[in-house]
């Protein structure tokens, strides 16, 4: 699960990381009021940043500076409601703009290949890390945290040294790297990224200039499998950016991803669900969704899944593909028959059920006059033909 920058910053702050203060605003009036508070606290400028769960906000014009509260309200007004990669901006982060001396990248990920938490750092901060990886892979330094002991101080230090940090910033870097690791562990995150990790110049009360490392941006994704033991984190799910069908699918306990095609798919098992989509594509159609009803699905689940598919007006045909193992074919067939009796609109459907209780399923489907198929390829071809027929 992706979470917004402002929420990610809260999680970093909770682990004691240096994050400059911010406020979240949903209206221009809120932007202006927040900006006023920052100016009153001594800021020269404020930054207004779109809160959306996609990258490239800066390039899209979703990050702007302002020198007065009035100006902040103006830029806030332009950013709120803006479309960034298909997502409407509904809230912005307002914070004090800082004087950046240098920018670094620091991230922690769950690395599949090494089966460890890997921390990555680069002196080329402020740009996308994927871009650095393509252009200058040598600029990215990595350490693997010990799988039993965690991130060790010498490992964090070696990372700081590798990106060129020295006393006193080096010690700050070590604390921040340890904090990133702690944030990951505390929240079951699979990615924690600070980009940029910035060196900012500050003037102390005695007038001396000092440099300090701060987390200017934050990106965190949470492991969906960990959410059940962090009930507080569920509140960070951004329903503004979620397809309404996603919440319904979660309630039913099925995996559903909306796509742009015209053939609704209902399958048991994630690998087979992807394969079914691929075969629809192979035979010249386009899938309307990825849908895995999971193992052992009962007829209520099947009925709910059918409602989700039919809620998409682009759906012109439906392909049901079930390889029964734990899932019983006759349960699915019963669910399909019930769903058809109640459905709001008529959409041609082809059903393929093999494996456990396939014979009973075949009898039920035949009695109810469903279009059926024996092989996966045949089912996909038929569904594509049905969708084309319906489109004419």
């Amino acid at each position, binding site marked *: 699960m992706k979470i917004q920058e402002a929420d990610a910053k809260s999680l970093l702050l909770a682990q004691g990381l240096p994050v400059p203060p911010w406020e979240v605003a949903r209206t221009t009036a809120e932007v202006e009021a927040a900006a006023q508070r920052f100016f009153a606290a001594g800021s020269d400028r404020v930054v207004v940043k779109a809160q959306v769960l996609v990258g490239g906000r800066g390039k899209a014009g979703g990050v702007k500076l302002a020198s007065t509260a009035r100006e902040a309200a103006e830029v806030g007004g332009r950013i709120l409601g803006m479309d960034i990669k298909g997502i409407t901006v509904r809230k912005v982060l307002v914070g004090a703009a800082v004087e950046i001396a240098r920018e670094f990248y620091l991230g922690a990920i769950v690395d599949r290949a090494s089966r*460890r938490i890997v921390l990555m750092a680069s002196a080329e901060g402020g740009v996308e890390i994927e871009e650095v990886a393509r252009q200058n892979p040598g600029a990215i330094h990595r350490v693997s945290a010990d799988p039993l002991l965690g991130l060790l101080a010498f490992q964090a230090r070696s990372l700081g040294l590798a990106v060129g940090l020295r006393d006193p910033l080096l010690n700050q870097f070590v604390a921040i790297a340890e904090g990133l690791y702690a944030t990951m562990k505390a929240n079951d995150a699979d990615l924690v990224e600070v980009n940029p990790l910035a060196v900012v110049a500050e003037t102390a009360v005695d007038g001396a200039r000092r440099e300090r490392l701060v987390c200017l941006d934050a990106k965190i994704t949470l492991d969906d499998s960990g959410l059940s033991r962090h009930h507080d984190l569920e509140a960070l799910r951004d329903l503004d950016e979620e397809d309404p069908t996603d919440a319904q699918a979660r309630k039913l306990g099925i995996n559903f991803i909306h796509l742009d095609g015209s053939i609704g798919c209902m399958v048991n098992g994630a690998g087979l669900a992807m394969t079914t989509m691929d075969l629809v594509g192979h035979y010249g159609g386009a899938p309307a969704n990825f849908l895995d009803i999971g193992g052992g699905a009962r007829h209520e689940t099947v009925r709910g899944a059918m409602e989700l598919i039919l809620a998409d007006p682009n759906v012109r045909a439906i392909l049901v593909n079930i*390889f029964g193992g734990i899932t019983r074919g006759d349960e699915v067939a019963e669910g399909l028959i019930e769903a058809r009796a109640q459905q709001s609109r008529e959409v041609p459907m082809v059903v393929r059920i093999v494996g456990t209780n396939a014979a009973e399923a075949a009898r039920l489907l035949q009695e109810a006059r469903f279009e059926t198929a024996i092989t*996966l390829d045949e089912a996909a071809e038929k569904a594509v033909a049905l969708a084309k027929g319906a489109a004419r």
Partner: protein
Amino acid sequence: MSILVGSDTRLLVQGITGREGEFHTRASIACGTKVVAGTRPGKGGQKAIDGTVPIFDTVAEAVAQAGANTSVIYIPAPGAPDAILEAVDAGIETIVCITEGIPALDMIPAVEVVRRAGARLIGPNCPGVTSPGRAKVGIIPASIHKPGRVGVVSRSGTLTYEAVQAMSDAGIGQSTCVGIGGDPIIGTTFLDVLKLFHDDPETEAIVMIGEIGGAAEEEAAAYATEYLRGVPMAAFIAGRTAPPGRRMGHAGAIISGGSGTAAEKIAALEAAGVRVADSPTQIPRLLLEAGFRP
């Protein structure tokens, strides 16, 4: 011979009294698997599966008193990592974890403990391992199998059944079928299983069922180039039409930062001489084209 499980498998079922545990234990026994024990803390001394399988409180007791050497775990996600660690501690050699939804950060120390002990973990979030006619450890339906000489390794469940069914229908039997699991952090990778198949005199051809996400298929392709040149191989990769940045059901099936795509994996496998199918039903034909004679 077969890999990982076989006629010498003495199976312990961790979580034998649960709904899934009991159902799949019956199916394992029905096709000849030696199920020697089950565990359910607090119910030691009782018997499961109509009084035929002794229940122990701990894995250590199941090993000492029933001679278990392999375990299968049907325990829900919150308790599954502990079940793995308990099996390792008791000296179990092969641990198959079926459980889905274990947080990745729990699996990192668990796989390390398994590695240090020299044990073998299959999964989690996997359908298990079957050597047709000898042992069935996990939830793969026995009906789809046919004993034979093709090794199958897969990240998926029902998709594997599809491929295996197509093989059996075409008269091509399997030596061992291994579901390695769809999670990002798993105990045994494609590469590990390919090495085992390479050393297995009974496995003459290999089928790989992969999917988007990670680079395990590419790693396997590099190994195949070096060590499996003469071995007939066929593969299928799911997720050609999957959108980037979305988890496709399996926690590990995600194209991130533009890598882990089906196209990359297919290219790597084809470069290694592996025939890649457009549909799982083409696998039997591709095996024959690659020179396999059933």
